[in-house]
């Protein structure tokens, strides 16, 4: 009788061990997914910011003159591609009218000089 009870307890231990391993696996997977979701959230926010910057620059060019703008992200413009830091999210400007620039987070000026929009940090 004692012998049989010992066997049941080994099986129970095995099942508990297996369940524990499965839940450990799920926990690791969940942590990895949460990390991915956090990055994805940051990417979406940065992508929206990038599109807003791109829109604002084209509007500034069309409105002729100079505009003072604020950005929550540092970004660079090179060959009509805007790269938003720190995750290097990119988007394009649909008109080749913005000069290359590196703009740091905060206020900057967009000034139309002839056929080009020149960006400078303030």
């Amino acid at each position, binding site marked *: 009788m004692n012998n*049989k009870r010992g066997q049941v307890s080994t099986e129970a231990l095995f*099942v508990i061990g297996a369940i524990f391993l499965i839940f450990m696996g*799920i926990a690791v997977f969940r942590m990895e*997914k949460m990390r991915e979701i956090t990055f*994805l959230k940051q*990417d*979406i926010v940065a*992508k*929206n910011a990038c*599109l807003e910057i*791109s*829109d604002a620059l*084209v*509007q500034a*060019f*069309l409105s002729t003159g100079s505009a003072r703008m604020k950005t929550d992200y540092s970004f660079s413009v090179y060959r*009509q591609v805007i790269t938003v830091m720190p995750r290097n999210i990119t*988007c*394009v*400007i*649909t*008109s*080749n*009218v913005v000069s290359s620039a590196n703009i740091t987070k905060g206020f900057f000026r967009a000034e139309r000089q002839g*056929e080009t929009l020149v960006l400078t940090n303030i």
Partner: protein
Amino acid sequence: MKITTSNRAQVMMTDLFIALSIFLILMIAIFSFMMVYERRVNSNMAYEDMRAKAMQIANFLVKSPGVPADWEYNSTSPQAIGLAPVPLILSNDKVANFTRMDYDKIRKTFNIRHYDFSFMLFDLDSNLLASKGNESENESVSISRYVRFNNTNSIMLFKVFRH
């Protein structure tokens, strides 16, 4: 019913299989939901990108003469294409030159090499006055603007869609 020791073990195994099956079905459901959600988020981001591009191009076409302003008379590729010497009033020469331009050259100028586009100009009776590009069944974003063309009120429709 009296359950013997060996029968009890069989019952436990059946229980275990049912529990495992439910667990696996739940896991598969959760993972597939996560994958669908991720795909939907990416598709939404791509749509927003397309919308922003379509909006920018449509605004530039109807509010700017382009760069250089007389690009329609130059043989070199324009830096930026605009059709309106005066905001919202489209020039016949610019529209005519735009519709004659090479399709890929226009896409390159607009920086939309990963997308296709179609441009259409209608009068208010829906008669087609000018067009460029092809229609597609793919997901698209369409922007319309009221303009003056040939001294008549017209509607410009600019559509960007996936390849």
